[in-house]
C-alpha cells in the first residue's frame, strides 16, 4: 500500500513545483528566463503586462524593449555563465 501513497505525494509535489513556484534561470550568453507565477512591475509598483507565461528579461543591457529581451545579446556577443558566477560567500 505504501507505493501508491508515495506516488500520490510525488504527484502532489510536482503540482506544487509547476503551479505555485516562480523559477528564474540565467541562460548562457543570454537573458534571464522567468517561469510563472510572477508579477512584473515598474519601480512605482505599476504592473508591466508580461503577455506570456514565460518571459525573457534582458541581461546584456542592449535590448530595445527592456526589461524584456529582444535577442540583442547575439549581435553584441554578450557572454555570461548559465548560472551563478563570481559570487563570494562572505
Amino acid at each position: 500500500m505504501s507505493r501508491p501513497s508515495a506516488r500520490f505525494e510525488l504527484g502532489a509535489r510536482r503540482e506544487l513545483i509547476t503551479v505555485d513556484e516562480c523559477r528564474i534561470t540565467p541562460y548562457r550568453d543570454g537573458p534571464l528566463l522567468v517561469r510563472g507565477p510572477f508579477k512584473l512591475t515598474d519601480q512605482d509598483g505599476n504592473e508591466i503586462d508580461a503577455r506570456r507565461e514565460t518571459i525573457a528579461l534582458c541581461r546584456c543591457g542592449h535590448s530595445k524593449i527592456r526589461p524584456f529581451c529582444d535577442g540583442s545579446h547575439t549581435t553584441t556577443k554578450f557572454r555570461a555563465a548559465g548560472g551563478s558566477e563570481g559570487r563570494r560567500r562572505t
Partner: protein
Amino acid sequence: MSLPDPRGPLSRHLLEHFVQSPHEFSSPSPEGDPLGSDDFHLALYLCYELHYRGLTGVSEAWEWNPSQIAFRQSLEVRFEDALRSRIPVESSNGDIATRLRAVTETDSHPSLADYMRFKSTIEQFKEFVVHRSAYQLKEADPHSWVIPRLSGRAKAALVEIQADEYGSGSAERIHARLFANTMDALELDSDYGAYVDVIPGVSLATVNLMSMFGLNRRLRGATVGHLAVFEMTSSIPNRKYASALRRLGANGATDFFDEHVEADAVHEMIALHDMAAALAEDEPALTGDILFGARALVDLDAAFASHLMSSWAAEQSSLYTSDASAPLSL
C-alpha cells in the same frame, strides 16, 4: 486548400491522379533541381498538404495511399540527398550549443531583413508576406510532428515552445492567426493556401524541409536542430520587419512581428539549451542530424533570400508565374 495549377510533369502527374478516387499509380522519375525546382517542390508540398489541412476536391484517403507515399518518398530521397551532399558531415564532438550558434554565425547571405527594414516598397513587403504564408499560416505545425518521437527534457522544452506558438490556450493569440491578421491588414487574402499558385519552389522548399523532417521519425534530430536555429535567428529579423512596416505606414500589420521579437527571445534559450542540447546529451547519436537540420535551414533560407533580393534588384516580381510576360500584381 484549393488545388493549384500544375507547373510541370511532376505536379501535373500528381494532380491528375488526386482528382480521382484513390488508386494505384506508377510514379515518373523525379526531375528538376531538388533544392529549388518549382514543379518538384509544388508536387512535394501537395503530398505533404494531405497531412495538414487537406486539398479541396481530393479524397482524404489519399493521405496514406501507398502510391502517393511512394511518389512522395521518391521526391524526399532526392531532396535529402541533395541537401546532404551540400552540407558537410559533422563530427559529434564539442558542445552543441556553441556549434549551433556557430551555424547561425556562418550564415553569410545578404540580409533580407536589413533590405526590408530600410529599402523595401510596400509591394515588396506584401510579396515577402505571400512567400512566408506557405509556412506561417500553419506556423509551428511541422515541428509538432516530432512531439511523440521525443521524451524527457527535449520533449518538455519543445512543448513549452509550441504551447506559446499555439497561443497558450487563446485561439486569437495562435501565431498563425496573428500572421493572418497581418495579411488582412495588408489587404492580402489570408485564406489558407490562397497564394500557393504564385509561391515559387525556392520558397516551398523551406516549408517542405520542415515537413520532411517532421514526418520522418528518423529525422527527429534534424527537426530539433531546425527549430533551434529557427528560434535563434528570429527575434532580430522580426524587429526589422516590424520596423519596415512602420516606415511604410502599415502600423496595423506589425503585431505578428512585434510578438515574435519577444516570444522568440524566450524560445531561443529554451530551444538551444533545454531542447537541442538536452537531446544531444540524451541521444548523442543524433548530434550529427541536429547540426544537419540547422545547416539545411540556413542553406535554404539563404537561397530564398537571394531569390527575393535578386528579383527585386532586377525590378521583377519574386513570385512565381508560368507566364513571364504577364507581370504579377498583388
